[in-house]
């Protein structure tokens, strides 16, 4: 079980240096732009703006392949499902199944959406280290503070959670080995199999939480109010330019949709 949450690829490219807020919001609007595209061709074209960004960020093909591989089966099922089950002009027949032009279009569109969305999320996590991601989210949630949203506490939880994921994974492996030594089996998704893992995992996690709380108390943590930070986020001209391009992408996608319909 090899796993790293650290999909982050340290670097100093233009994409790396963008403010995490810019990247988070752009990710959101990029998703909107792709969803607005009314057909497969439009989806494929509007999404393709991601490729130059991937090159600028210096991501390797192997890295991208690793992001897409787990989704391969899922994407195939979705595509096949569309191609065969959509009624319309018949193109070819595979046994009893008839592939239609409309189905091919819809299938390709679904495929393009999943492909680009996963790619965009991968680009974000590869070029933004988890800590600044948490900072960016906190800043974006800040307006919610007035409505009673504890944005600083949420950001702290996010940072702590990111820090704990690898520890918990290690712990989960240790528990699985310990239970296997006592005759447990972890093959298949069964309640009987998962309980001996999940319950000890919780107990050890809560114990860790207690120690962590004590450590925070000892360092006089008193909530987020009035805390200063080591790195202050600041938007630079590049951020504004990048964001304007994102908005233009959404705008053109929307305009094309109106024109086509």
């Amino acid at each position: 079980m090899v796993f790293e949450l650290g999909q982050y690829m340290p670097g100093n490219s233009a994409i790396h240096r963008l403010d995490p807020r810019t990247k988070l919001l752009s990710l959101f609007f990029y998703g909107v732009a792709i969803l607005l595209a009314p057909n497969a061709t439009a989806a494929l074209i509007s999404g393709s703006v991601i490729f130059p960004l991937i090159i600028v960020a210096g991501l390797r093909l192997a890295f991208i392949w690793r992001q897409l591989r787990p989704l391969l089966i899922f994407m195939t099922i979705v595509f096949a499902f569309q191609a065969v089950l959509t009624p319309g002009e018949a193109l070819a027949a595979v046994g009893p199944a008839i592939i239609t032009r409309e189905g091919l279009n819809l299938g390709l569109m679904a495929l393009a959406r999943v492909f680009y969305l996963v790619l965009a999320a991968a680009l974000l996590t590869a070029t933004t280290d988890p800590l600044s991601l948490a900072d960016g989210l906190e800043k974006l949630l800040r307006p919610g503070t007035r409505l009673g949203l504890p944005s600083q506490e949420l950001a702290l939880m996010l940072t702590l959670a990111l820090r704990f994921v690898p520890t918990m994974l290690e712990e989960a492996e240790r528990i699985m080995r310990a239970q296997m030594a006592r005759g447990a089996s972890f093959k298949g998704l069964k309640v009987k199999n998962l309980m001996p893992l999940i319950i000890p995992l919780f107990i050890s996690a809560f114990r860790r939480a207690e120690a962590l709380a004590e450590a925070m108390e000892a360092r006089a943590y008193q909530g987020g109010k009035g805390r200063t930070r080591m790195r202050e986020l600041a938007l630079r001209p590049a951020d504004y330019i990048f964001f304007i391009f994102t908005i233009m992408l959404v705008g053109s996608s929307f305009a094309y949709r109106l024109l086509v319909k």
Partner: protein
Amino acid sequence: MTAKIARAAVIAAIYAVLTIVLRPFSFGYIQVRVAEALALLPILYPEAIAGLFIGCLVSNIYGGLGPIDIFLGSLTTLVAAWLTYRWRNSWFAYLPPIILNGLIVGTYLAFLLNVPVYLAVVTVALGEAIAVLVFGIPIIKRLRRVK
């Protein structure tokens, strides 16, 4: 308060660990996200509401279907967790994660992947029901004993 923050953080971490370890089953419309069994935790711990939200956010950022999962999926989990907490004393508490995820996540997945809405809603709700009822209830029962 520090105790609550710390506990919410580890709950979020467990959620992310379970989602990512069981990754092939966790995304898309044919999904059984075992981590969603934790959706019942607000019954025992109010701080789990924030924990589940953050956990879902982390899992979706690091392995979901991108932006829509990150924003809408996590908010759905947040609302469901809050309702589960509100109704913690009755069996109603089991319903919000199943119904809300089925409806909201099912609808946007249907839109995203061009599949019929009813199909996506039913399959997501079914996967969620398995996670919550089959895995979630035994977890809550046992945790109640050690609490």
